[in-house]
Structures are given as C-alpha cells and as structure tokens.
C-alpha cells in the first residue's frame, strides 16, 4: 500500500522535472546564465580588467614621473605621480588576487551546474550513441571545458578588451594619430590572431583527431592482440605500422606547432612594431618628450593582457568542440516515450502478460520477434537461449528501458506504455546486466536499493544472498569501487542479488546472475538464488541449466522467438537446444 502512494508522489515530481529538463538541455552558453552567474562573471571580469589597467597605469605613471622629472620641475609637481606609482603597484596585485578568486569561484559553479544538467538529461536517455568506459570518461573531461571557457577564454578576453580600450583612450588624449596606430596593433594581436588560431585549431584538430585515433587503434591492436600477433609472427609488422601512424601524427603535430609558433612570433612582432610606429607618429607630430614616452610605454604594456589571447583562441576551439559533444550527448533521445498523463500503477500481487512482443534496437533486425509469456503471482519462469537470442532485450522491455515496437506488456491488464517508466521499474526490477559497484561503503552500496530499510532488513537481504560471510570479513564501512577494495565477480553478483532482494519488487528480474563466474561459484550462487526466490514472482535469465528443475516454466528463446517451452523434465525429453545444452553441460562438468 504505502509503496504505491510514494510511487504516485514521485511520478508527479518526475513529470514536472521532465518538463523542466527539456527546456534546459545544455546549450554551450547556458553555463553562464545560471542564477547569479552573470553578476559573478562580471565581477571577475572587472577585477581582471582592474589588475591589467593598474599594470598599464603603473608603467604610464612611472614613465611620466621619470620623463617629467628629467625636466626638473619643482618636487610638488611630481608628488601626484609618486603617489600614483606606489598606489598602482600595490593595487595591481590585490586586483589580480580578487580576479583569480572570483574567476575560479564562478568556474567551479559553472562546472557543477553543467554536470548536474548533463546528468539530468541522461536519466531518461536511451543507450548513449558513444558507449564504453573511455568515452564516458571523455564526457566527464568535457565538462571541465566549461572551466577553461571561463578562466582561460572569456575572462581574459574581457579584461584584455577593457584594458585595450583604456590604453587607446590614454593614447588618444596624448595624440589621436598614435591612438589609431595602437588600436590597429591591438586589433591585430587581440582579434585577428586569436581568430586565426581558433580557425587553425579547428582545421588542424579535424586532421589530427583521425590520426590520433588511428594511432590509438594500432596501439590497442599491439597490446590487446599481442597473443594473436605472436602466434602468427606478425608482431614486427604491427609495431612498424604503429610507428608509421606515430610518424603521421608527429608530422601533423609539427604542422600545428608551426601555426602556433607563427601566431606567437607575429604577436611579438606586432607589439614591437606598434611601439615603433607610435614613437614615429609622435616624433612626426612633434609631440613632447614626456607625452611620447608615456604613449610608447603605455602601448608596450597594453599588449601584455592581449598577447595571450592567441593561445586562448586555440583553446577556445577545443572548448567549443567539447561543449558541442556534451550538447549532442544531452540530446540523446529518451529510451521510451512517457505517457502525458500516466495511469496509476497497478497494485501487487502482479500478473505480467507479454503478448506478441516485438522490439527493435535502432535500425537493426528485431531483437524480439513476437514473444509471449505469462508470469502469474508466485511463479518462477526461466528464460534460456544462446547469446543474442534477445533474452536481455526482453528484460529491458519489461523494465521500460527500451521501447516496444508492437505487441504489449500488461501488468494486471494495464499496458505498461500507459504507466510512467519509473512506476514500472518500481514494480519490475532486480539484478540487471552488468551490475555496478559504486565508490562507496558496502552499506551504502546496498542501501541504494532501500534507503529507508531498517538495519535488520539490510542484514536479512545480505543473509539471503549469502553475502553475510563476506560483509563480516570486509566490514560494512569498507569502501568499494575503483579506488577501494576490489570485488570479485562472485561477490559482485551476490551484492547485486542482495540489492535486488532488499528492494523486494513485486516481480523480481534476474539477468544472468551466474555470468562470468567459475563453475563452482556459479553452482553455489544459483542454488542459493533458487532457494531465496522460492514463492516469489521471478523471471530468471540464464545460460546454465543446473537447478532449473525447480522453476515452474522454462522458455527457450532463439533468434528472437520462443522455440520451446515447458518444465525441465518436458524439455530434456525432446531433442532441441535445451537437451543439447544440458548434455554438453553434463559432459564438461566434474563427475564428482
């Protein structure tokens, strides 16, 4: 009872959230539009500009002080400049400090926001177009690009713009012609060069990325295919192919280095020649010595925040690409269509009826070609069949993580397409393929399947999954996962089973619980599992037949269709996949 109530509550929240998500799916610049982000960003930019301006003003006032002092005026005429020099020298550092703090604060906020938005977009998403652990970690790296966008591209550009304008204005007071010269130089170094490096980076990375991927593939061939290569005496050739790929990449990288070097050289040249041109203009216009010196040194220093923009342009191209990738990932279409007005979830006990189910993974042959199955309360059904027969697809369809093409799945007569997918998963779930161990304690790894469960419930689930000896040994607070304690295949499956038992869904799904275990462990686990699920509505997908005499019905799935069904005794009596598998299993097993 109480379960259903909470479920409907979450449903309402869910639909609201889904509506929100569709409007905020990451566009690259949405990172700066968060609450209060704009104000913080402006503050950081102003602090940066103030630091750069103080630098320009320091040199300008020092130049004025020195050249004016050479004219030997009364000391009082210099006092303002002396104070100014000291003040600018002090404030430059302070402003810089403020800029760095504000900039990092805003960047961290933006990154956190991007990650949360991306994650929310992924929740209803179907399988990502780019899968695999490497690609996932690249996606996480891509969210770092937001930091670079702010700290290394936008903020420096804003500070450089403000400083450049201020320097041109100073020069304009002294001599309008010199201001034009300076403005031209700054435009070359601050606009043309960064635009050029950004364009070059785009072009070169389009050439470098395939070369890099080619090298990576050849390196992977050498490492992962080491045994094949050794057996066939093909190692040397593969090594030279990898080094050829390295050579091609090196050539391209050198090309890119040449472009960046050219940008650096042109930047330095522009700075120097602008100063020369400013002095020349000043001399030609007969400007005084003091004004000439101030104009020249102001021009020289004005380039300091502007020159790094060439490198920022290069980085900007990378940032834009990363944000585009994120946008594409976030736009992954949802796995299933959610109903506009979901029907209320049926009450357990639950009868599941699968009728003529056809499921097709994008654009391929149907994975299920008309499968029918009935699961009445308290019954246990096993699904067996060769790999690729559609067993896991059937479970995905039941869990609403893949869309139904035709046919239907009904829960107590209600079509699952009329229910919200979260509601369906609250009723039908369990041990899924590739269960995941989080970097968290043993307790938290279990509790995610029952945050409100009592300590007794957790312990009971652990006992039923026969994980208690292990939790005793490891301790409930031991951290698991990548940086923590390693979990063996058997323990992982038992952990996943304990989660499933703790969650205690009305219909329990178990997908290849003995996958990747050695014979002995697999036998033990299957025996425990069949014990633990007695009297519980269960759908078990397996490729091991030992112990299946205990289940109520066995369905053989081959090539997306049901080829046999019946009890163990029925199926071993007739020729077919089941009997073949049973015999070969018996043959390779210990005779002990």
């Amino acid at each position, binding site marked *: 009872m109480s379960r259903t109530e909470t479920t409907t509550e979450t449903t309402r929240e869910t639909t609201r959230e889904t509506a929100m998500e569709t409007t905020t799916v990451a566009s690259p610049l949405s990172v700066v539009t968060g609450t209060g982000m704009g104000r913080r960003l402006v503050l950081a930019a102003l602090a940066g500009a103030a630091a750069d301006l103080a630098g320009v003003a320091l040199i300008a006032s020092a130049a004025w002080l020195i050249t004016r002092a050479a004219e030997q005026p009364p000391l009082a005429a210099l006092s303002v400049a002396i104070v100014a020099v000291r003040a600018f020298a002090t404030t430059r550092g302070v402003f810089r400090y403020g800029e760095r703090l504000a900039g990092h604060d805003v960047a961290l906020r933006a990154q956190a926001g991007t990650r949360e938005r991306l994650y929310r977009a992924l929740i209803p998403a179907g399988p990502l177009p780019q899968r695999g652990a490497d690609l996932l970690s690249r996606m996480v790296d891509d969210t770092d690009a937001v930091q670079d966008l702010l700290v290394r591209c936008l903020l420096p550009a804003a500070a450089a713009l403000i400083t450049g304008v201020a320097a041109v204005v100073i020069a304009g007071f002294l001599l309008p012609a010199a201001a034009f010269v300076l403005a031209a130089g700054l435009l070359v170094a601050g606009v043309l060069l960064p635009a050029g490096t950004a364009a070059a980076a785009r072009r070169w990375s389009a050439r470098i990325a395939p070369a890099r991927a080619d090298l990576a593939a050849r390196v992977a061939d050498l490492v992962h295919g080491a*045994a094949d290569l050794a*057996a066939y005496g093909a190692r040397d050739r593969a090594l030279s192919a990898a080094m050829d790929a*390295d050579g091609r990449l090196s050539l391209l990288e050198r090309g890119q280095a040449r472009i960046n070097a050219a940008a650096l050289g042109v930047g330095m040249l522009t700075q120097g020649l602008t100063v020369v041109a400013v002095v020349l203009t000043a001399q030609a216009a007969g400007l005084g010595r003091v004004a000439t*010196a101030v104009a020249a040194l102001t021009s020289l220093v004005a380039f300091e925040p502007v020159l790094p923009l060439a490198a920022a342009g290069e980085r900007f191209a990378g940032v834009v690409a990363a944000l585009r990738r994120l946008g594409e990932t976030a736009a992954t279409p949802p796995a299933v269509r959610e109903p506009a007005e979901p029907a209320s979830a049926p009450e357990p006990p639950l009868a599941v009826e699968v009728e003529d189910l056809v499921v097709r993974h994008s654009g391929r042959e149907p994975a299920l070609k008309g499968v029918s199955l009935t699961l009445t309360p308290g019954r246990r059904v096993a699904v067996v069949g060769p790999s690729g027969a559609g067993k896991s697809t059937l479970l995905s369809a039941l869990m609403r993580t893949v869309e139904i093409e035709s046919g239907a799945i009904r829960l107590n007569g209600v079509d699952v397409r009329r229910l919200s997918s979260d509601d369906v998963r609250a009723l039908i779930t369990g041990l899924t393929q590739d269960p995941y161990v989080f970097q968290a304690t043993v307790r938290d790894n279990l509790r995610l399947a029952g945050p409100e469960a009592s300590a007794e419930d957790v312990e009971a689930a652990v006992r039923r999954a026969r994980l208690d000896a292990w939790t005793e040994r490891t301790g409930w607070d031991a951290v698991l996962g990548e940086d923590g304690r390693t979990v063996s295949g058997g323990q992982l499956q038992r952990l996943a089973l304990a989660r499933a038992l703790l969650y205690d869904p009305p219909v329990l799904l178990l997908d290849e619980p003995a996958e990747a275990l050695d014979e002995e462990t697999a036998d033990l686990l299957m025996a425990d599992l069949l014990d633990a699920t007695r009297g519980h509505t269960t759908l078990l997908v397996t490729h091991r037949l030992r112990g299946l005499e205990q289940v109520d019905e066995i369905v053989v799935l081959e090539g997306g269709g049901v080829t046999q069904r019946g009890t163990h005794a029925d199926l071993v009596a007739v020729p077919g996949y089941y009997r073949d598998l049973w015999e070969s299993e018996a043959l390779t097993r210990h005779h002990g």
Partner: protein
Amino acid sequence: MHKDLLRLARAERSVRIHLACCLAAAVVAGLLVLVQAELLAGVLSGRFAVAALLPLALVVACRGLLGWAQGVLAGRAATALKSALRRLLLGRVEGLGPAYRSGELVTLAGRGLDALDPYLTGYLPAVAVAGVVPLAVVVRLFVADLATAVIVVLTLPLIPIFGALVGWTTKAVTERQWRALARLGGHFLDVVRGLPTLRAFGRARYQASVIREVAEAHRAATMRTLRVAFLSSLVLELVASLSLALVAVPVGLRLLSGSLDLRTALLVLLLAPEAYLPLRAMGTRFHAAMEGVAAADETFAVVNPPQETGQERAEEAASARSAKEAASARSAGKAESARSGGRAASAGGPPEIRLEDVTVRYPGREETALDCVSLVIEPGERVAIVGPSGAGKSTLLHLLLGFVTPSAGRVLADGVDLAELDLDEWRRRLAFVPQRPHLFATSVADNIALGSAATPEEIRAAAEAARVAEFAGALPQGYDTPLGERGANLSAGQRQRVALARAFCRPAARVLLLDEPTARLDGRSEAAIVAATRRLAEGRTAIIVAHRPAMIDLADRVVRLDGGALVPPVPVRGGEAR
C-alpha cells in the same frame, strides 16, 4: 630536467639538436629584450636620432622570428621525444605478458605522452630563460645604475623564496584539494557509469541533487583553500610591482637633482621588470610541467621496471635471447652444412608432440596451472581437451605456442626441446585460433592474411574454407571493409570464422591449436565452425579445447584436465560412428 628523459634526449639525435636550438632561440630572444630596451630608452630620451627606430624595428623582427623558431623547434623536439618514448613502450609490450594493465598501457602510449608537451615546449625554455636573462639584466643594471641594481638584487631572491615558502605552506592543502577535485570528477563519472543500476532501483533522480550538493561542498572547500593558495601569486605580483615602484620613485627624485640622465633612467625602468618576469613565467608553467614529469615517470616505470621483478624480467629476457641466439646460430649452421635436412624438418609432416612431466606455475599464484602433465600427441592425431574452467586447458595451448615456459619438465617436438627451438620458426608450423580472437583495425583481407604474404586468391580461398565468404560479401566494402574497434561490428561467430580463416591462410602449418572456438556461439554458427574445423584438420595434428559435443565429436581422443592434472581417459563419444 628529468633524469631518464635527459638520457633519452641525449641519445636521440633529432631530440638533442632541436631541443638545444629551441632553448638557444629562447635565450637569445630573452637577451634581445636588453637590446630593445637600450634602443627604446635611447630614442625616447632623445639621445638617439629617430633613425635608431630602424635597428629597433630590426630587433623586434628578430625577436618575433626567434619566437617563431622556438615554437617550431620545440614542436619538433616534442614529437621526436614522444615517438622515441612510444617506440620504447611498444617494444616492451610482448615482454609484459598479455594481462599487464593493458588498458592503462594503451592510454599511456596514446594520449598519456601528450602531457609531455607543456613540459618540453613551455617549461624547459622558461627554465633556460630564467637561468640567463635575470642575470644579464642585473649585470646591465649594475653598469647603468648601482642603486637600482642593488634594489633589484635584494628583491629578486624574494620571488623564489616567497614562491617556495608560500608553496611549501600551502602544498599539503593544495594537494589535498587537487585530490578532492579528482575525487569529484571520479564521483560524477561513478554516478554516470552506474546510471543503469540507479535507474533499476529508482534512485537516478535523487542522485542529481547529490551531484549538486557534493559539487557545492567541494566548491566551498576549494575556495577556502584557494584564498590561501593564491596568496602566493599575490605576494609574487606585489614583489614585482612594488620593486618597480621602489626603482621608479628614487630614480625620479635623482633625475630631479640632476644626478642621473634620462636615458639611464628610462633604461632602468624598462629593464627592471624584465628581471622578475622570467622567474614568474617559470613558476606559472610549473604545474602543467609536473604532469609531463609524471607521464615520463610512468613510461620509464614500464620500460625499466624497478626492483627485483625488473631483474627477473631482465634475466628472463636475457635467457630467452641467448636461447634464441643459440637456436638461430644452430639453424644457421644447419642451413650451411645440411640445408636440405633443415628444410625437410619444417616442410615435412606434422610433428610428434610430447609433454614430459610438465608443470606450469604462474608468478604470484599459489596453485599450479599444469601439474606434472605427461602426454604424447601423435602426428595427425585430433585431440579434444576438455575440463572445467581453470583446469589448465588454455595453459596447455599457450605452452605449445611458447607463450609460457614449463617451470619443470619439457615439451618436445619430434624429440627436440621447445626451449631450444627458434620460436619464430616453430610458430610458423602452428595455426592458433584463440578463444577471443582479436580483430585488428585493418581490412578483412589483412586480418585473414595476418603475418603471411598471401595473395588475394589465397585469402579468398581461406575465406571460402572458413565460411567468411558468406558474410564478407554483405559487408559494406567486402574484403576491404575495416574491422576492429571502429570498424564493422562482427558477431562472435563471424569473428571466430575470421580467426579460422587465418589458420586456413597458413597452408604450411602442421599443428592446429584451437581454444574453445565455439564457446558463446549459437547452434547455427557452431555448425559452420565445426564443419570448417573438420576440413582444416585434414592432414594436420589438431589440439582442440572444447566444451560442446559437436566439437568433441571431431576428435580421435578426448583428454580431460582437472585442476591442472590429467584425468584418466574416458571412451570417445560417438567414436564408433566414424
């Protein structure tokens, strides 16, 4: 510079020359700043005529040119060094064994080495400039104006001192924060990877708020640290700019009294910041450079493994090499004295294979993989090896392939110990179909021809025989379709057939080694593989690790392994049918 990197850079001519020229360009460009300041001060003070702007422009042009050259040369040095490191790494792959953290190795040899770029192209030139230019500036200042030089000399050491001091006091905190940052990225990755599991238990949405809370807590903690950590840059910035004020104001006052000329004053003003700049530039590049050093450390840890394991490996490699040399010397001798005899041995029929009390023990494991196994396989015999997983079946095949060597006992081929044979030559007589064949990122045809110089006709014939032809025609580019990670997606059965075609493509092979070729296959694919294997085994010795009855039926004899030991023979199933 990194010790091992330096040695490598010295040894590689291309790295040595380009790196030396790059550093020289950086230093010369740095020194030209002095000339530029000299000329600019001269012109602005009116001491030099306007014509002096021409040499000034030339100096500016030279600096631009040198900056460009420095970048180009740095790029060349970096790519050459990365290539050298890559060659070293990839050359080690075979010696590391198949399971040696392969994923990490692939990453390191690929993107991992790119971390060296900032070290080579940014940090090293900055170090070179910092070593020369401040000194030159100070010397010039001493000549120009003693008082200024003294101020600069007194404040200059404050930069490294404060840098080290502040860095030292905040190091622990900063490092903790960097680790926290990595953990935060790790947390996010963790949650995204576990999304299917979270979804299964209705916890996916809840985690979104956890991501936000964790990130917010991290941001608050980071900002507390940064407030202290950024003090270091505040101090450095203040030292540099206050020193300028310390120089400029007294200079102005001395100009007022006429004890200093304007040209010197301007020169001092232009030069003083240049003394501090290289040190600060070096500092800002330090962090990125250290990532490069870490990558270099990792590479050299693989290339020259530390302590006793390294020694073991070196010994192993040395003994393998000497055995190989001995073998090749022997075969060379044979080739000279009795060429026809040597050829007859390799071109002749299948060898007799004899295992004498062979024990195999993998390093770091207690139990033996094979325990005192004695077995004779007659020429042309077809043997099925069965047994539970972990029984030592694959180890037996790897033993015959020379991937593992016996810890005790010997393996004989036609009476010759495998340890004394030239492995390459021996392997040419074998055809191996592993349990999970690796498909290389080349065409279907090249995958079949792997290691042999087969003609297109021979490749076609092998493909027909292994029934690759059935699906190769349907691939987008037929036999030219690229395979591998980014290539066409073949099913498990199709992959096995490509691996079988490899075996067909070696007509000279006399011994077939098949490791569960039909595991993970459905009935139809299995039938295809079994039929192909039957044809392939004709006139050859076949040793087949098998699970399924159809494959076991092929064999003349079934050998059962359990726990690394032979189990007494059982009658062959369906033997009477043949």
